[in-house]
């Protein structure tokens, strides 16, 4: 336990102060205030369910060979190439929060690339199966893992249809305070919840826009006037494995 909690200390302290001010919010979203990465929300604005955060990916715009979103996520959250301390793990064991997937239509040979990460399901199987409740969904639709409660059973990894989660196979150093990563626990894309809570945009989306590909739009799916809702309304968007009825927060176009 101490292995994981040591690097978290600064955040934890921050958590205690903020959670104290937001005691009222704790009742609205039980569990939320136990989470380390999610504590940037000002005390007077509890995480509420009037918003549902989502990302729309336009695979037609996604650059074949471009890896900007992945690199940005690595930098932002301190994994992959941005965290050399994960050096004992084999490539199959190293964590991946987001990855570029290339798909080739077997019939037409048409090749498309797209970023793949936690789809922030509205009915997340990972949350359903988690025995301790460490996997949880915030009121605003973001799915997270509470690293303090995760026992490392990996049932969520078995249940996730998108292989979105990774298990940490060794002790890690140099972690970002907002993204503590503990040996023996499971982690996945947080939709950059620390940025979102400060009215920011996830790092991947930002990087994609900076690359001028503009293949990703982030926003509130419940707000009719948000860019993401307007785009979805106009052009539509698909869920990957829509047959599972998970109502994902990440949608795709061009696949």
């Amino acid at each position: 336990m101490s292995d994981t909690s040591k690097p978290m200390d600064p955040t934890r302290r921050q958590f205690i102060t903020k959670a104290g001010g937001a005691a009222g919010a704790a009742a609205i979203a039980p569990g939320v205030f136990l989470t380390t990465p999610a504590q940037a929300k000002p005390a007077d604005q509890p995480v509420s369910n009037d918003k549902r955060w989502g990302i729309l990916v336009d695979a037609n715009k996604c650059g074949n060979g471009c890896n900007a979103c992945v690199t940005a996520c690595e930098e932002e959250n301190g994994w992959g190439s941005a965290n050399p301390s994960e050096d004992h793990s084999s490539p199959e064991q190293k964590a991946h929060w987001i990855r570029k997937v290339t798909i080739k239509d077997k019939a037409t040979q048409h090749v498309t690339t797209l970023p793949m990460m936690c789809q922030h399901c509205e009915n997340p199987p990972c949350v359903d199966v988690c025995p301790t409740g460490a996997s949880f969904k915030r009121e605003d639709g973001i799915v997270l893992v509470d690293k303090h409660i995760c026992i490392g059973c990996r049932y969520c990894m078995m249940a996730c249809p998108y292989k979105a989660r990774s298990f940490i196979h060794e002790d890690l150093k140099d972690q970002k305070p907002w993204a503590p990563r503990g040996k023996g626990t499971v982690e996945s894309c947080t939709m950059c919840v620390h940025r979102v809570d400060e009215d920011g945009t996830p790092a991947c989306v930002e990087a994609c826009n900076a690359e001028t590909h503009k293949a990703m739009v982030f926003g509130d799916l419940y707000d009719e006037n948000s860019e993401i809702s307007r785009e979805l309304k106009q052009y539509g968007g698909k869920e990957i494995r829509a047959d599972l009825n998970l109502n994902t927060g990440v949608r795709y176009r061009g696949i």
Partner: protein
Amino acid sequence: MKQVLKYREIEGKSTGFWILLGGLGALIALALGAVLYMEHEGHYVTGMTNQIVWGMPHVFAIFLIVTASGILNPASIGTVFGKTLYKPLGRLSALLAISMLVGGLMILVLDLGHPDRLIIAMTYYNFKSIFAWNIILYNGFLAVVAIYIWLMMERKMNKYYPAAGFIAFIWRLILTTGTGSIFGFLVARQAYDAALLAPMFVIMSFAYGLAVFILVLMAAYAWTKRPLGDAVLFRLKNLLGVFIASVLYFVAVYHLTNLYAAENNGVEHFILMDGGIYTKLFWIVQILIGSLLPLAMVYHPTIGKSRPAIATAAALVIIGGFAQLYVLLIGGQAYPLEMFPGYEVTSSFFDGQVSSYSPSIWEITLGVGGIATALLMVTIAVRVLKFLPVTLEDAVVDPHAAKTD
């Protein structure tokens, strides 16, 4: 003339007894060493990856947990279905059930990323999770069976034990259904997406449980030089034959229905035809060596009456059971998740590829340690408490059966 049934502790003074205890103890010590190493270093020293997240320890753990449930059968048949021949086996059967479950849970817990958080697992419940339900089911099972044993042993309480036996019987059916459902709920994985898995696990538990029971019974009576008559043994081995055949039937239905469901065609093709090690394990070990061969052996008019052959058949069923769980568990994960039907998929995270898994010595040691724990519990229990009937000769067990069989 029917004699009264007497139970007695085993003597436990022979060198063999101490060698057995020492050997089991050593295996457990090795397992704990392996756990310390895995937990200290992290799971990178194991064969598990982010593609195959449940590895060899889970194969062992699930085998033991499933077996624990099925091994209660001799007790249930005696108590619930009132078959006198099985009554003397009740205590041992219940003891084995507890021990196997403890061994299996030990493996499961020690393979967690955070075994030190056991308290969390016991206090934070997500009641939507079948896994959390299983924790409750397992603990309840241990309690129910312990009470059942006590009622069987305590003469004054004897009249209540059929009720306890009945509860234990129902409980363990639910428990195995729960274990099977762990997989049944994984809708994302083609190999596990079948309601059939839960009943299949129940019937698997019958076969594995009886196989282990036969072996333990034969060993215990041979080593303590207590008489074990043909009546009991032949009845058990015939029952084993029925269970093996039932598992085969379920396996056939499972694969046929999966073949029928178009979306599961890929994984079926993988397991049955070109899954490499998994295909070999399935056809050669699970079906041929682990099912058809023992089936032929127990029903063969002459071989079926030889004790070494019966013991071998039981051992083969166990080997086949391990193969079955390995194919189901590891093979089911090795086959890539199908996210984009109709597309060829590649990525830097091994999407669209068959994953490979090679169990590490640490994981195997942990698994063996779980089995050793179960057996050590049994060995000590039969030494200090009256679990084993002094004799299971035909005349004692069931004079009728002895004549008709």
